[in-house]
């Protein structure tokens, strides 16, 4: 097992900065998930850690040792790729033991380890078959088995579940999390699927435009996004964002007549310049009686949760529904659910008041 550090890591493709000044420490045994939109540099970072991608500047350290110039095979890592990379001419068993055979591990050890991983992944029935005979999900399971059989110091996973059916993906995700905790292997996982990131990660590294936006535990990144980008990228339906306009006694929501009074806002917010409010739909609740008046436009479902869209003035917002059907109502803005961002830079500016 190993601690992985990235220090001022930059990778250039010609003039294009694919990875720009990235700093990160992944602790021994930690499960870190790189999350971000396509082309944000997350896969490039992972490939650099693997040694499949050269670096332009900065250091990659494994347990304090600089590994930039080591070949992938010398780094004691294992990797699972997005698209199936099993060796099509070899049987499942031969695929799994390939890393051991390639390194000349004694036969008896190979047999013992094959038994071990076959047990973990319940692959006993498929060992003699060839990759082409297996569904994509099972193939990735084999790729994972091939990755862990060598008990690597660092396990690198590049969108391993993205090419798999939804149903099987759920199962694999659960198994993967379970396996990682059991083995305690330092794991770096790349995905663009926030649900994968939220359910697997000890910490999420959110990337955008080749830079790290935020590094935090899933709950923290959800509740306290570091920027407007983080707020919008994570959570579905995404966070409501409304520009606030200073008025006497409080801040007004955009061009509406709704005013959040100073009592409802964290102290000192008014002095920070133009401010944007971010609030998650689940922090907007319909209430009876006191609250801001609104009209429910429509209701919709995401999974088991029900949401509704409503209007305050011209702004269309989303909230969690606890009743059914359109109609008038009123709403509470819960202070603990409110995030404030600098309207110009998009950066978070006010810490949420303690709930």
């Amino acid at each position, binding site marked *: 097992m190993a601690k992985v550090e990235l220090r001022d890591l930059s990778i250039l493709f010609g003039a294009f900065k694919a990875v720009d000044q990235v700093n990160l420490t992944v602790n021994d045994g930690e499960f870190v998930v790189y999350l971000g939109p396509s082309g944000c540099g997350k896969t490039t970072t992972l490939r650099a850690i693997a040694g499949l991608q050269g670096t332009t500047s900065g250091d990659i350290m494994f347990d304090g040792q600089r590994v930039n110039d080591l070949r992938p*095979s010398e780094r004691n890592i294992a*990797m699972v*790729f997005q698209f199936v990379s099993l060796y099509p001419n070899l049987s499942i068993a031969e695929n799994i033991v*390939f*890393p051991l055979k390639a390194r000349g591990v004694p036969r008896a050890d190979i047999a013992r380890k094959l038994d071990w991983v076959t047990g973990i992944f319940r692959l006993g029935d498929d060992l003699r078959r060839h990759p082409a005979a297996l569904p994509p999900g099972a193939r990735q399971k084999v790729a994972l088995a*091939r990755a862990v059989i*060598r008990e690597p110091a660092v396990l690198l996973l590049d969108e391993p579940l993205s090419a798999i059916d939804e149903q099987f993906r759920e199962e694999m995700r659960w198994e993967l999390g379970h396996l990682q905790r059991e083995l305690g292997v330092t794991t770096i996982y790349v995905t663009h699927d926030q649900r994968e990131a939220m359910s697997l990660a000890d910490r999420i590294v959110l990337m955008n435009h080749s830079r790290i936006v935020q590094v935090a535990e899933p709950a923290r990144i959800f509740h306290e996004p570091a920027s407007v980008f983080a707020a919008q990228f994570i959570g579905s339906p995404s966070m409501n964002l409304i520009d606030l306009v200073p008025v006497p006694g409080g801040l007004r929501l955009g061009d509406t007549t709704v005013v959040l009074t100073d009592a409802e806002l964290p102290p000192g917010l008014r002095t920070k310049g133009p401010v944007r409010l971010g609030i998650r739909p689940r922090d907007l609740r319909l209430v009876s009686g006191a609250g801001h008046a609104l009209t429910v436009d429509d209701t919709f479902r995401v999974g088991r949760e029900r949401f509704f869209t409503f209007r305050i003035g011209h702004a269309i917002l989303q909230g969690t529904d606890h009743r059914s059907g359109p109609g008038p109502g009123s709403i509470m803005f819960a202070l603990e659910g409110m995030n404030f961002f600098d309207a110009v830079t998009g950066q978070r500016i006010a810490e949420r008041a303690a709930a």
Partner: protein
Amino acid sequence: MMEKALQPRSTGRLMILGFLSPTLILLLFMVAYPIFALVYFSFHNFSALRPGEGMTWAGLSNYTYLLSDTALWDRFVFTGKFVFLCVSTQMIVGIFVGYQLQKAFRGRDVLFTALMLPMMLSPVVAGFLWRYMLNSEWGVVNYILTVFGGEKVDWLGRADAALWAAALVDTWMWTPFIILLATAAFRGIPDTIYEAAEVDGASPAYVFFRLTLPMSAPVLFIALILRLIDSFKQYDLFVALTGGGPGSATETVSFAVAKTAFRFFYTGEASALAVILLCIIMGLAMILVRHLSTMGDRN
């Protein structure tokens, strides 16, 4: 109304036959007739030079005569040696060079094109070209040998040297074909396979023998069979390069067929020999066809 009337007729057997008939008739004349004629001749005593003497039924005597003729067995032995030398060298060199050409380097495309050139020549042209280069008195090959202090070799005047010389020319000509197919096969292997193998700690040699070669095997196998068939019936190269000599030391089976048929005009005997040759080549071709059809099933 019109469409209704046309529909059943357009899918009728007659229509299908109608469309196929030009090809079928052509094939009948170009392939079926010669083969039937060949087999028919092979059971008769017949000379195309003296058609007036007519054909007399010979039964299997052409075949029994040929198969008991030790001179003919020598032709088969020589052809076998030639095929083995050519095909093994071409496969090994072709695969090696094809693999090296996977790597990106300056001038790779130019080199690749240059390597393909010998294949574009006619075997007769290549044969004459090398006949001059291999001339024992004033050929460039012996000149280079003497420059480096070697002895002159009578390349085309000695039976063993002539075999090597012919194999060298055939290899010079046809290795590019293997390079071409090997390159195509190697390029079909996705990069992630190599990246996975690199992460898994496999050495380049291990990757080559455990992954690259087996994964390219279907294509390389086709190349092998095509080369086997082609070099087995090699004729024109020998006409130009050695003329079958010295003596009849470099006569292949095909050469013997041509000689029997068109120098001695023993048409019946030559036909029988051609039938034997045809059977061997069809055997090889059937392996190829079967292999291709199983490959189609797998995909």
